[in-house]
């Protein structure tokens, strides 16, 4: 398939992996921030090709995983409100709140709908003027422009029965939080290509200077990832950390400027709490005062809902790269994709689910 097969070529992948193994004089710890990259690494078995040369640490870049428990509880409360049509991306439906998940609320009669774009939710609002339509607006910088556009359009077109439950999070503050954590083992980062296609990569230069870590903008196909890792290892070996763009076909320095303009018009920076990690200052976006009427938290008065995490789940340490999923005492026992204790076991991009699903808890050597 054009533009895809080229980046999935097995022979090229193996030769890149060989080059990386030959370049590495020691084992380097590299974090891929994005959950989509975690998924691709594990699904394709890239980590196996790099064994001995590189340890991939799976970062906090799955939006489903880091969305705080109390926000899920707020979503459940809103979705259960009579008359509400609650729209969400599919994988949020199975994320457990304190007591149940959106699937359960749906089975009990709530009108919960899976959409592929916030603009679909806006269309539903247009078609159902008598109903309140709420979109669950989560994600990193990647999903933010479409969410901003939906709210912007709702205001412009006076679609007053539309609102959004917003929990946007940002990559650079997360990298900063990881680097300042006392137990940090990360020596370099793969930055997520799609985030950078929106935001550019100018924001990473101060981080490289401050923490002396290579940051390489990387795509998602196997060859993209291996090329990103190859450049990262080359930097680590040379001892000269830099920002480097290994995803030129989608990312430029300044990013998508019309998108950034819209983002700054609709959202403002706020402190956010990350599930399993805790509060990170200035690490998220919320709707600006001018858009408050479209803020579902405000409209449905759920601002005061508080929640308590499972005492067994150690997804926070997993998200910070300090614990492998299968080292968590609950992994595969109390906590499975069927009965997830933390969001990292729910999302298909979550590190725990990726480990569980792709068999990283058994000795894969036996099946080679």
């Amino acid at each position, binding site marked *: *398939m054009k533009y*895809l097969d080229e980046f*999935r*070529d*097995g022979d090229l*992948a*193996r030769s890149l992996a060989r080059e990386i193994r030959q370049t590495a004089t020691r084992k380097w710890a590299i974090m891929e921030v994005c959950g*989509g990259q975690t*998924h691709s690494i*594990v*699904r*394709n*078995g*890239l*980590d*196996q*090709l790099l064994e001995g040369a590189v340890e991939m640490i799976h970062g906090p870049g799955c*939006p*489903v995983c880091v969305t705080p428990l109390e926000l899920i509880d707020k979503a459940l409360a809103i979705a259960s409100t009579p008359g509400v049509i609650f729209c969400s*991306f*599919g*994988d*949020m*439906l*199975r994320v457990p709140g304190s007591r149940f998940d959106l699937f359960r609320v749906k089975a009990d009669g709530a009108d919960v709908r*899976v959409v*592929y774009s916030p603009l*679909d939710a806006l269309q539903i609002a247009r078609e159902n003027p008598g109903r309140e339509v709420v979109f669950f607006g*989560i*994600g*990193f910088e*990647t*999903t933010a422009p479409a969410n901003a556009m939906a709210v912007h359009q709702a205001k412009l077109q006076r679609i007053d029965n539309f609102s959004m439950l917003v929990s946007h999070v940002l990559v650079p503050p997360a990298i900063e939080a990881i680097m300042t954590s006392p137990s940090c083992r990360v020596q370099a980062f793969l930055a997520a290509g*799609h985030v950078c296609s929106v935001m550019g990569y100018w924001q990473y230069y101060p981080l490289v200077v401050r923490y002396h870590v290579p940051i390489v903008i990387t795509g998602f196909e*196997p060859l993209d990832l291996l090329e990103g890792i190859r450049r990262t290892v080359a930097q680590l070996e040379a001892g000269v950390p830099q920002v480097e763009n290994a995803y030129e076909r989608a990312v430029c320095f300044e990013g998508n400027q019309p998108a950034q303009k819209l983002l700054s018009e609709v959202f403002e920076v706020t402190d956010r709490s990350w599930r399993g990690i805790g509060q990170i200052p200035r690490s998220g976006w919320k709707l600006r005062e001018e858009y408050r009427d479209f803020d579902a938290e405000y409209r449905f008065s759920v601002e005061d809902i508080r929640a308590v995490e499972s005492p067994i789940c150690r997804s926070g340490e997993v998200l910070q790269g300090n614990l492998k999923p299968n080292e968590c005492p609950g992994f595969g026992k109390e906590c499975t*994709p*069927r009965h997830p204790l933390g969001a990292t076991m729910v*999302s*298909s*991009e979550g590190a725990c689910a990726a480990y*569980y*699903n*792709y*068999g990283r808890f*058994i000795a*894969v050597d*036996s*099946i*080679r």
Partner: protein
Amino acid sequence: MSTMSKLDFSQWSCPLPLRDYPSIVMGHGGGGQLSSELIEHLFVPAFRNPALESMADSTVLPRPAGRLAFSTDSYVVQPLFFPGGSIGDLAVHGTVNDLAMSGATPLYLSAGFILEEGFPLSQLAAIVNRMARAAREAGVQIVTGDTKVVEKGHGDGCYINTAGVGVIADGIEIGPTRAKPGDVVIVSGTIGDHGMAIMSVREGLEFETIIESDTAALNGMVASLLRFAPHVHVLRDPTRGGMATSLNEIATQSQVGILIEERSVPVLPDVQSACDLLGMDPVYVANEGKLVAIVDPSVAEAVLAAIREDRHGQDAAIIGRVTEQHKGMLAAKTAIGGTRIIPMQIGEQIPRIC
């Protein structure tokens, strides 16, 4: 009445006396005049065969030689019509295929309809005609049936249940517990077509090209492959849950491992793109006209050739083998040379956020 039964039902559009009701009303399921008009003017002419026309409470059939295979399945697909087929095609193909996977020659089907009040008769006629055509092509007869009507809002237009009976020739022993280490795994064509065809219309996704469902009866293919390999070990039609679910079930039931080569699994480029876009994996996407065969290596090439001879099997491929190792599990060699486990899914595959 007799003039009515001579109507050409491929052009059917609410003839007298049904014209008073262009859509289904509660009375069509009430057992009275409206019910019998529906049977006489729609079902019987479409499915026409002597057994059905006896119109008794139960249909009496001759006893065939050999063992019987018996299967039932209910069809609730939305939308009712989709690229490449309809609920009517599925209702015949699905049950015919379930019978064929035991090595049976399918003979008779029943058809139960649950219709929602207000459902247009023209759509029902179109569905029934598709069923009739599918049955004719598969060489089976629909010999008994039932219709119930539920109140508006209590159904999704039309649900269909079919049950089927087939006969298995002596010496044919096929079953999910019979896979043996060393066996070869064959799939009869591209996977994931049906599921993505349904998704592309149901979720309002506008792909540039139309993905068509692969819905088809496979009894012809099975009959010809059994001529080459009467001792084929396992046959499955990987419907809901896709190929990965079928192979996982076989691995568990036969207590063997199954290792597939990801590169060898046929997937249409359009289906692969759609899956990539939605963050789904074609190995879990439903098929309605494909089979997985597990056979002794000595007959693998002959079986593959036989499947490819069939018009529904031109893209058939050998995709893997049965192993002693990792019993009860399905594993894959990835295209770039890694290995992964392909587990059972918890529920439906859910599109990913980004």
